[in-house]
């Protein structure tokens, strides 16, 4: 199945958005997840299926500035 993750097309395995995070070793608490331009609540990551053509954004916190 092909999905776009952070702008890049990728061939992925996995049933849910949480599976995609796990495959990349990303702690769900480190990112905000956007699915097809809408924010996905953290408690829905495990229950939201990945579909062909999905556009997923893993937005990392960026805190610096000083």
């Amino acid at each position: 199945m092909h999905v776009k993750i952070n702008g890049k097309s990728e061939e992925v395995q996995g049933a849910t958005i949480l599976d995609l995070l796990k495959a990349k070793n990303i702690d769900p608490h480190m990112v905000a997840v956007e699915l097809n331009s809408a924010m996905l609540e953290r408690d829905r990551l495990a229950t939201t299926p990945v579909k062909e053509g999905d556009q997923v954004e893993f937005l990392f916190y960026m805190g610096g500035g000083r």
Partner: protein
Amino acid sequence: MEFSDEQVTRYSRHILLPEVGGKGQKKIAKSRILIVGAGGLGSPAAFYLAAAGVGTIGLIDSDAVDLSNLQRQVIHQTTDLGRPKVLSAKEKINALNPDVEVVTYEDRFTSKNALELVAKYDVVIDGVDNFPAKFLINDACFFADKPLVHGGILRFDGRVTTIVPRKSACYRCVFKHPPPPGLVASCQEAGVIGVLAGIIGTIQATEALKLVLGIGRPLTDRMLDFDARRTAFREIRTRKNPHCPLCGEHPTITELFDHEPETCAVNVTSGAS
């Protein structure tokens, strides 16, 4: 308000622009911009906004200039070591452009002073280095109904977005709460390539000027991420989140509060810096 001959010459490259002109330059001269944090992002933003002829620049920061700041905080110089950042910055701004009134607050930006402060300005620039302060700035701008230009830098990455409260996605629409302590590094513990402050800070200044002038398309409902390793920008579309705890349909945040300060391995100072 009329410009002197000297001012017409000083701002001539602005006045020549049809989108700015004399009328726009007067808008800039009447504008009031608050920069929270006189550090990495605040330095270039303050310099360019001063050069542009912004009428009043407010600067809030409680820190003194440290040697480790000078790798990127270009408004401060070696001779400023140990001096309050707001005073050091005020001097440089006035030397560049005496037209600018600089109001300094040698203080931390907290839930106690945030609203009163933000209310006095037209646009707010986020130049702080920690999550509690970034969330507080977002909340204060929401309650005071002031546009905010958010910025962040870390290692080789930078991010900018403009927030017009109630009209576009806010910081909490995307990131509801600060990350759990210790999970995400901030710049003081992780390092940052110095020039990133210039790149992101000057984009923030550009956005602030556009808001003041009412021209162009603001960076709202978009996050602009910059990767210095690849020299590549990427735009991520965002939108107002109905579940946002601040500006959503059933808000749980109804007044300002301070998030727990970050625990940091290297330096425990927080607040406006």
